[in-house]
């Protein structure tokens, strides 16, 4: 067993910067040798380029952003630079931290500050180093086989979360649907019925922003912004959504027994990059046929999502917790008792939005 890396006398910022610049050099070398594939997306109102060294990771890390693609004209607001070792032969540089400095979820907490973010997913799977000052993040992945189905469905989740913070958005474990002039945020724990509620709206006049991962604009007028054009259903629930079930052969299956549908291939006209928010909904499947919406305390909405979101990535959790509270204090909260007749769900949400208009 090798000795632990000695404590580095350099400042945390310097240690990060040294690692970041060497990682960036390796990615640039990978691009020179394997070629560049560029994709540009507009997420939460700002543009981001994803530069891939070689083609290996392009689909896995950009399919889910397809609905947010924009032409690459001029300079983007930020750049994610991606390379993988399997196809380029280039690994990450030596670490500038000790094992004791790694914290939950792979965050190297001692090297993270307001301008820098570092996450190492073990074992030997993924490294994300992001520098606000450089306007870039560098992502190293070991290879295609190490990208899990949920990461194909929600690529670069941590990185987008970190980057969105600087634009006034926080990540929230939530769905969102509505109309261009106003929509609802759907909050609840995993399995609470967020996806069911959001996906039921795809066959209505309501637009779809997300079923699970969402960005929440925390300004004076709360907004929801889309991250991914995906929707998840438990395999046994898919037949309740025939238009999705018909595309089951193109869905991917996660370890939790869920099917992930890439909605940009199925109903691109129903997807919205974002919506202003008018209310918060807490789903509550009842087993009855009809859907109804009743008032609920905002504290219930907050409790349903804030701890789960805040504890997901401790260094990002503080901003998320505060941001969610700030937004919820501005929005009325309701419980949506969802019925088995899925058509009733968008009808009830539409009627609520009419009342709040």
């Amino acid at each position: 067993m090798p000795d632990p890396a000695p404590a580095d006398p350099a400042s945390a910022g310097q240690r990060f910067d040294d690692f970041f610049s060497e990682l960036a050099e390796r990615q640039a070398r990978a691009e020179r040798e394997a070629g560049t594939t560029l994709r540009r997306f507009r997420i939460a109102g700002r543009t981001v380029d994803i530069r891939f060294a070689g083609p290996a990771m392009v689909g896995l890390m950009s399919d889910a952003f397809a609905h947010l693609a924009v032409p690459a004209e001029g300079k983007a607001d930020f750049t994610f630079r991606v390379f993988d070792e399997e196809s380029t032969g280039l690994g990450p540089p030596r670490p500038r931290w000790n094992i004791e400095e790694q914290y939950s979820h792979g965050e190297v907490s001692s090297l993270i500050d307001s301008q820098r973010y570092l996450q190492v997913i073990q074992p030997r799977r993924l490294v994300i180093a992001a520098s606000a000052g450089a306007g870039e993040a560098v992502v190293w992945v070991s290879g295609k086989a190490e990208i899990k189905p949920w990461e194909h469905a929600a690529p670069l989740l941590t990185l987008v979360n970190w980057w969105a913070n600087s634009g006034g958005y926080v990540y929230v474990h939530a769905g969102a649907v509505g109309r261009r002039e106003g929509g609802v945020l759907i909050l609840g724990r995993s399995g609470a019925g967020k996806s069911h509620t959001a996906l039921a709206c795809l066959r209505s006049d309501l637009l779809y922003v997300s079923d699970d991962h969402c960005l929440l604009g925390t300004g004076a007028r709360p907004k929801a912004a889309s991250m991914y054009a995906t929707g998840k259903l438990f395999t046994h629930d898919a037949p309740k959504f025939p238009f999705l079930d018909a595309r089951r052969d193109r869905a991917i299956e996660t370890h939790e027994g869920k099917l992930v549908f890439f909605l940009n291939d199925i109903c691109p006209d129903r997807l919205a990059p974002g919506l202003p928010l008018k209310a918060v909904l807490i789903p509550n499947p009842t087993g009855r046929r009809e859907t109804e919406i009743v008032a609920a305390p905002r504290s219930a909405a907050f409790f349903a999502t804030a701890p789960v979101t805040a504890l997901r990535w401790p260094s990002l959790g503080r901003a998320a917790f505060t941001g969610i509270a700030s937004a919820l204090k501005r929005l009325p909260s309701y419980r949506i008792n969802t019925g088995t007749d899925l058509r009733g769900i968008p009808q009830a949400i539409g009627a609520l939005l009419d009342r709040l208009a």
Partner: protein
Amino acid sequence: MDTQAAVFEVNEPMVISETIDGETVIINLEYGTYYSLKQVGAIIWTGIQARRNVSDIAGLVQAHFDVEAGRAAAEVAELVRQLSEEQLVRPASGAAGGETGAPLPAPAARASFVPPALEKFTDMEAMLLLDPVHDVDEEGWPHLPGKDGQANA
């Protein structure tokens, strides 16, 4: 130490909290635990945030709820003890809230008193404890056996 004169503060930065509609949600980011305080408990938390001493917080409780002084003081002391045990608060350093604290909320009307209860939730602990970071070698880098050379390519 005079318990009633003791001043406590939130154990920042690892403890964060928000109060919405009379319910306070408290998170310990280090341990992955979170807590709920309602009504009386939320008012007591507000007093702690404002760095008021235990006696002042008991007075705040009395102003908001229908409870006699001795009972209020005992309930505040007991909740503060529990919060300390959970490492959510600690003895305050520096000046008490009389000089530095935030203003305390004014009561609308006195409500009936229900003893404060600190509800603890541990279902998210597993998310932190299962993190694979701590299963790797001591080098602090994601080496798998036999792949050291590649990592420094």
